[in-house]
């Protein structure tokens, strides 16, 4: 390393101080930091102007490579070539580090802190993560649905007491009575059944149910074989306007002098839901004659008024039905004798045949009941009331 030549002080003028070869003169004061937006400025020490790439500041042998205070050897203004002096050279600036400015040295932003406020994302705690809230909502909703399933599985019927003595109707039987083919229904038509709908005279106020719909009131008993036969048609007809739930099966009484053990449904413990019609069934006694349900005072008034001549051949006879105070149906449109010896599934299986007498009577009777319901619901729904054979039967219903 070349040693600086000795010069007398008075010769050290800017003009007389030559640049030494291999020396790196400090010619500029500390440069102001040029900041880019978003970056952290670093106040650079007086950067030596490298005259050749790769040159390093000249140091005296044995001299420390950094100044004792880490301060740059800032040149005093007006003096050039101070690298030739024995002052310690400027240390290589550390990246990212801002060495403290020397006293008196020009430093950028010396009037205040130049660090910009920097936004740094702080990681969210777990409970604030989007998946945490979504997962919690999902768990809650699934739990609620499971509760609904469990409650629905164990819930008793919506109306009346649970008919625990009688089993629930098998799904295959229900499917048959609720899914009678429109083609079969149309082909059967009235099925040879006489119009069972007797129009009420005097135009009494419409009988409406708790949901504000026209109501079909039914009075029967589980022991009654004619009630047993009539229920097949009622279930078929009402299933076209709504839905039964919790429908149980039973048989009529086993009295050999009667028509014994007619396989049927019971309306005890069932519920019916429809947006067109309300259904109010009363099963007064079980198949052994024990009391079950009692008509309300209003229902008893209907029975007293209409379950008698001229509408009924037997006062207080069953089955008795009042359709919205427009029509009375007294007795059964299906002869229970044709159901003898048949169980529920066998009866249900016949409903897909147009040739079966059982199907003709049950479905024919159901078509009449359907036509009467269409009369009181204003032909709603159209899919039921506007097609054959219902529209045809409607036209044949006697008017008061």
């Amino acid at each position: 390393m070349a040693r600086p030549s000795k010069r007398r002080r008075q010769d050290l003028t800017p003009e007389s101080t030559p640049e030494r070869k291999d020396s790196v003169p400090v010619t500029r004061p500390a440069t102001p930091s040029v900041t880019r937006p978003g970056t952290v400025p670093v106040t650079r020490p007086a950067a030596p102007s490298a005259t050749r790439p790769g040159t390093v500041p000249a140091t005296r042998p044995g001299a420390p490579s950094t100044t004792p205070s880490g301060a740059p050897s800032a040149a005093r203004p007006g003096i050039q070539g101070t690298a030739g002096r024995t002052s310690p050279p400027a240390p290589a600036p550390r990246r990212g580090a801002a060495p403290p400015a020397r006293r008196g040295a020009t430093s950028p932003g010396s009037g205040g802190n130049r660090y910009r406020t920097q936004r740094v994302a702080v990681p969210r705690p777990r409970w604030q993560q989007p998946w945490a809230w979504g997962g919690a909502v999902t768990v809650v909703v699934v739990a609620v649905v499971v509760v609904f399933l469990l409650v629905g599985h164990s819930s008793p019927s919506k109306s009346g007491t649970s008919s625990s003595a009688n089993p629930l109707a098998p799904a295959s039987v229900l499917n048959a009575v609720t899914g009678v083919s429109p083609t079969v229904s149309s082909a059967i038509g009235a099925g040879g059944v006489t119009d069972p709908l007797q129009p009420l005279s005097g135009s009494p106020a419409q009988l409406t149910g708790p949901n504000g719909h026209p109501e079909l009131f039914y009075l029967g008993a589980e022991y009654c074989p004619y009630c047993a036969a009539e229920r097949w048609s009622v279930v078929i007809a009402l299933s076209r306007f709504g839905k039964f739930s919790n429908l149980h099966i039973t048989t009529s009484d086993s009295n050999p002098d009667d028509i014994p053990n007619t396989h049927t449904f019971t309306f005890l413990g069932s519920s019916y839901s429809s947006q067109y019609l309300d259904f109010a069934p009363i099963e007064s006694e079980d198949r052994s004659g024990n009391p079950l349900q009692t008509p309300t005072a209003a229902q008893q008034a209907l029975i007293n008024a209409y379950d008698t001549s001229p509408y009924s051949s037997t006062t207080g006879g069953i089955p008795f039905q009042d359709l919205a105070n427009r029509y009375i149906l007294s007795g059964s449109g299906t002869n229970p004798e044709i159901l003898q010896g048949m169980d529920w599934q066998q009866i249900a299986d016949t409903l897909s045949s147009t040739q079966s007498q059982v199907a003709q009577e049950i479905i024919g009777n159901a078509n009449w009941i359907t036509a009467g319901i269409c009369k009181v619901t204003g032909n709603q729904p159209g899919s039921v009331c506007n097609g054959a054979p219902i529209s045809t039967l409607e036209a044949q219903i006697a008017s008061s």
Partner: protein
Amino acid sequence: MNRPSATGRTSRSSVAELEADPSAEQSRGAGWGAWFLLVVGVIGLGISVYLTTLHYAGVAPLCSSGGFVNCEGVLKSQYSVVPGTTIPVTVPGMVWFIVSAALALVSIRCARQGSAEPRWLRPGHLIWALLGLASVLYFVYDELVQLHELCEWCTSVHVLVFLSLLVTLGRLQSGGTAAYEGTG
């Protein structure tokens, strides 16, 4: 707390987050969430229109009948209309999906225009989705507890509402709730 390391980079957050502004982040892109909500709204509206049309036409929908899955039975029940009216529940459903899709469209439009979303948009959409979920739980209760039957069309609509809730919740959480602090 993140501080710039010796290399000048944060160890855990991206540069985009460093330079991000919460309100600007919402407006920079609607993201897949808004598009998803729009698609869900359109699909749900389509199903609601279909069921409403069938209701007034008196035609049975294309679905199974009989057994536990019996949409015809459910759609004929008293729970298929707004209580006290003859208006099918599919009509309020149509309104719900229209509003949900409209809110998603607002988000997409703001993103395309490069403007910030209204501050009420995401919270409002979440509240709307919560209202939808409350209705869904009511209908599911009717199906499972009262009718003991399920309706496929209804269940598909319920799922769409539930998914909308999850996405609106996620959008609210991701839009401007990250914590920021300055280092000086």
